[in-house]
């Protein structure tokens, strides 16, 4: 008896909670906002790579020529991300 009642009450509470997004007037979370956050994360990761390459050069692991080549590639990839961010406005 207690068990059955508890299951019903718990399921009712859970159902109310989980169906919130289905009942919401805002039926769709904004895809644009999600894309922006993904691009921001990608930009951060790319910046980190640029900085790591710079640290490798300064600690003598990368020669000047190799670093310039890698840095150019990474910056090119970062620019592509920035352009996509700019396109979002």
């Amino acid at each position, binding site marked *: 008896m207690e068990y059955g009642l*508890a299951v019903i009450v718990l*399921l009712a509470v*859970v159902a109310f909670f*989980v169906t919130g997004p289905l009942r919401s007037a805002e039926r769709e979370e904004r*895809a644009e906002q999600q894309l922006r956050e993904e691009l921001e994360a990608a930009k951060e990761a790319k910046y980190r790579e640029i900085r790591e390459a710079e640290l*490798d050069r300064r600690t*003598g692991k990368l020669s000047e020529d*190799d670093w310039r080549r890698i840095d150019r590639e990474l910056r090119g990839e970062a620019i592509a991300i920035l352009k996509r961010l700019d396109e979002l406005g």
Partner: protein
Amino acid sequence: MAWLGSACLFAGLLTALYAAAASLWGARSGEWRWVASGRRAIFALAGLLAVAFAVLEAAYLRSDFSFALVAQNSSEATPAFYKLTAMWSSQEGSLLLWVFLLSLYASTVLLLVRRRLREIVPYAQAVLAVVAAFFLGLVVFAEPPFATLASPPADGNGLQPLLRHPAMMIHPPMLYLGYVGFSVPFAFAIGALASRRTGADWIQATRRFSLAAWSFLGFGIMLGALWSYTELGWGGYWAWDPVENAALMPWLVGTAFIHSVMIQEKRGMLRVWNVSLIIGTFVLSLLGTFLVRSGILDSIHAFGASTLGGPFLAFIVAVLAGSAALVVSRLGDLRSQARLDSLLSREAVFLANNLVLVGLCFVVFWGTFFPLISEAIGGEEASVGPPWFSRYTTPLALVLVALTGIGPVFAWRRATWASLRRALVPPLALTAVALAVMLALTPAAESVPSLVMFSLVAFVLGVVAQEYWRGVRARRVMAGEPWPVALVALVGRNRRRYGGYIVHAGIALALLGVAASSAFVEQRDARLVPGQSTTVGDYTITYREPIARVLDDRSGTGAPLTLGARLEVEKDGERFVVEPSRNYYGASRPDPQAPLRSFFDGEATSEVDVRWGLLRDFWIAAVPDLQTLEEPIREGDERFASLGSDVGGLLVAALAERFANTASPVTVRALVSPMVAWIWIGGLVAVLGAVIALWPAGRRPLGGVYAARVGRELREFARA
């Protein structure tokens, strides 16, 4: 309140099934609100399981023996700490812990990525929900933790004595945090495959979870080793027991994974390899849980054996087959974006490290399952012992440590010979000095593998020190900061790299302890009577007197009787006293006709005495010879059997007094183990490094000024 716990589990099962269905429907239909609803279902699941967990913990603390589980493995006399942790000594409780931790992990990761990975998340969510539903199915239908007893006993059986050890009570949650944690990157890998978003997004989103799971699993393995060393009474910390191996295998493959994903992040390579590694790690994690729970292999963990083998095996096969089919169907999406530029690159070293780690895992797997394999092929069960494992794992471990040192000195893509020469000369010089010192001052040359390991450890530590020094120097040149500030800034801004180096140093230190203690341990087993002496290494051990304590166990396990020996140890004129003993817990159902005999037929554990030291441990265990008590036990059983358990305590106390006052012999095992302490120190250093590596960065991890400068420069570069 058992009804509330059961109701939470049943509602949780339905909620998990809903989460899986809603997430998949959201993914198929493209309606994000269904995915959001599925995510909420995962949050709700965590809430339900938190209530269930709290109900069971409260029952343990209240000693509510109407709960079958509480009556089974707790008692009024069980110390509060062990009551709190007794839940996971049982199968039902540990399965509840598994799924509760999974719901927490899943909720955390889904909260963090709620606005990202739009295509991957729905599938990852569904995978996490399905895994949770499997474990909930087990606790609802097969092993219910909230079963009740119609006639609760006045007292419970108490916690299995072997588990009354602080390390052992923290060890299972740590292992489970590891096993369960790997389900997060696994779920996102499956999500990436299902959605064909096979880039590095899923790796970056779950990187910290992978590292946390790896750290917890490693820490759990170390705690298990510590328990074995201080509780089991045989003197070692690793026995290649199936259940130990079961935890080691996912850790090894997980180590390969957290290295190789960096190649995918940097270069877009090894996509098939990385998803295969995380699938392997997760399957091995399930296998680890399965091995403890199935009882198919003889193990020191036999107290965990049960009949859940069938469902576990079916689930493992389903996960493996489903994942493999998905990988094969996505081979086209998993093509590498780049090729290996040079063998002189960090990518190449990581690849080699991956092959060694997977090779190690294969050796451990083969040795662990050899009894089953041999039985299946030849009809007879045969097993392999520690020498077999050592023969194959030692050379692989040496190569691995060498790669641990070599890896950090290589740059990504291509290193030059000149830069390698510069980077390798100082650590190699340090290695040569260390080798010379060892040959001159220590007996290290008596074991060539150990000598090689010591030299490689010196090399790894030299590389790590050099990396820090070069990094700080570069930072000082760039920012003009004083040394301490530059060090903090360097680590703070490059946590993953410099935390990783500390992990390398920790693992090297731990392996130093393993190599030294394995090759140079000295052991003596002797039967002594009071006044007699024996020696081990430079130590002379003299048995002074027997000791007996009633309800006064110094380890706080609540043992009713402790018998042992007081021994005086002398080395180079210095003396100290040790008191190894054995705890007796009595039978859970004593024979009323022979209460004393059955008391000693119950569980007993070794309480070893260890003098810890950075250079060596002095370790001693004692097994009291109960021959001197044979006569009084027989007499006591004959005269007092009819009085029942009322006088049992008094009789045990009388026996204890008899033991202490006669020249009772003891059998001692004494060990002098060099550098064992470095295993634990190395483990803690590795955990510290892992914490640094996974510590979350602030909102602007690159620093506002730097980010602005890079951004400005990049925009100018684009305009040019």
